[in-house]
């Protein structure tokens, strides 16, 4: 049984705003399925041994900073990397498509 279907890959691509054509979907669905199959094999072992999943590579907790204000970027610097700016703000294309 496949771990991931071609439809699921297409759905994920849409959510991630990746424009995949039909041929790419075929290739990636196959490759992802192999990867997920390998991960599932590991899960069989870890589940049996009751090993908790690792979300962080370093054994650290409670890394915080005090609530202190530090200087922000000058506005020009903040906007410098933006494709477009207007009135001191980031200019973005229309958010909602016309109905």
């Amino acid at each position: 049984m496949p771990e991931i279907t071609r439809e699921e890959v297409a759905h994920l691509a849409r959510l991630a705003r990746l424009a995949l054509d039909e041929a790419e979907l075929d290739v990636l669905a196959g490759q992802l399925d192999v990867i997920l199959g390998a991960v599932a094999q590991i899960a069989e072992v870890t589940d049996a041994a009751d090993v908790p999943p690792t979300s962080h590579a370093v054994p650290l907790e409670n890394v915080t900073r005090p609530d202190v204000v530090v200087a922000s970027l000058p506005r020009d610097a903040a906007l410098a990397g933006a494709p477009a700016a207007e009135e001191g703000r980031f200019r973005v294309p229309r958010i909602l498509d016309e109905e």
Partner: protein
Amino acid sequence: MTTTSTVPTVPYDEALQEFEPVIGLETHVELGTASKMFCGCDTAFGAEPNTHTCPVCLGLPGALPVVNATAIESTIRIGLALHCDIASWCRFARKNYFYPDMPKNFQTSQYDEPLCTDGYLDVVVAGETVRIPIERVHLEEDTGKSLHVGGATGRIHGADHSLVDYNRAGIPLVEIVTKPVTGTGAMPAEVAKAYVAELRDVLRGLGVSDVKMEQGSLRCDVNVSLNRPGEEWGTRSETKNVNSLRSVERAVRSEVERQAHRLRNGERIVQETRHFHEDTGMSTSGRSKEEATDYRYFPEPDLVPIAPDPAWVAELKAALPEAPSVRRRKLVAELGLSDNDSAAMVNAGVLDVVLATVEAGASAAEARNWWLGHLAQKANERGTEAVELPVTPEQVARVIALVGEGTLTAGLARQVLDGVLAGEGEPDEVVAARGLAVVSDEGALTTAVDEAIAADPDAAEKVRAGKVAAAGALVGKVMKATRGQADASVVRRLVLERLGVTEG
């Protein structure tokens, strides 16, 4: 939107005789920390656009977030005040979505491991205590603000493009989610409003947020569904953008009325997000609800887990301030307020500000009169609640003190409060700027009295002839000439003196 047609409805009370309501509330609170959640940018409201941003809150490549310790503490204190269990270990999660209000294309939030779970808040509605169960309290970050250009004024629909300010992006935001609240019978709208009001008082008492709904530091999403008695819960709608106490009530009310009409006619309720409009008190349909799984939450790899030390949590719990409900009961008893009086203040939602005004030095009777009288009237004119007026209990207490010491008459005091409401500053500043202090210079008043007598010889003659009641007209003229700044009893005495009459 060009649709202006009114949605068919069933009257609220009638709808609630036929259907049972289930409500749920998601409240977002901006914490009052000095710096943002994951970076040191300033959180002050009202700064020039994009002057409080840095590589972290702009999501620039390679920038790494670090958790604000105070935000964690504040969230735990909120959880404790709401009688929640505090997690011994939890993680942040990425909520992935593409929307220009978050430059990172994800919001750092919490998913299946919130800091606080399973609490409650008791609220009093119409003399009855209703327990609102709390599902979770979690910590996330606020989004940026968009300005929509082109098309209808400021609306996202039909806009040509949008301009984004990321000053607010990354400000710590606490989300407080209730469990579905059942059994509110004929009062779901009133219960919803009372809950948000009580929650605001709790948050204010904790000092974790300035809880200003008009500035968006406290915002509410309202879920409503209806079902017939004995049937399963109905499909719910979620109304967003509900940003005043009055609107919380109106949002529930209008949804009950709208849904009842659809259900009665055998129509389906669509699970959707609706947008509330302050101006009309109605909501309109927005995008249909995305499935939670579409956000593809996963543990945030750039932040290590949070594991609050139970001993520290116990300390925070022991140091919590008295709950507003407890403090309220004590003060009401101390002040000897009658049940009727305190009920009237609870209904108007002003009990806490009245008590705060008393704590700032005013008498209970004066505080009550101002909040239930002039200020309630001003709130009504503005279509808001007295507690949401831009005047503090301390300012009201100061005005009352000025009346007490004879600097202001009651009429002048109203003008001073109006000045404060108009943003003219502290009461003393308004008195000085508007020249409102009582005229106590008898020389100046005598001149005004003589002018009044000269202008109305008939009235003067009647007074001289012993008709003391006729003095009222002359006193009125003087009060008008001095724009109410004279003490009427002094003016009356001067009028009688000038006309050679002694009273009684």
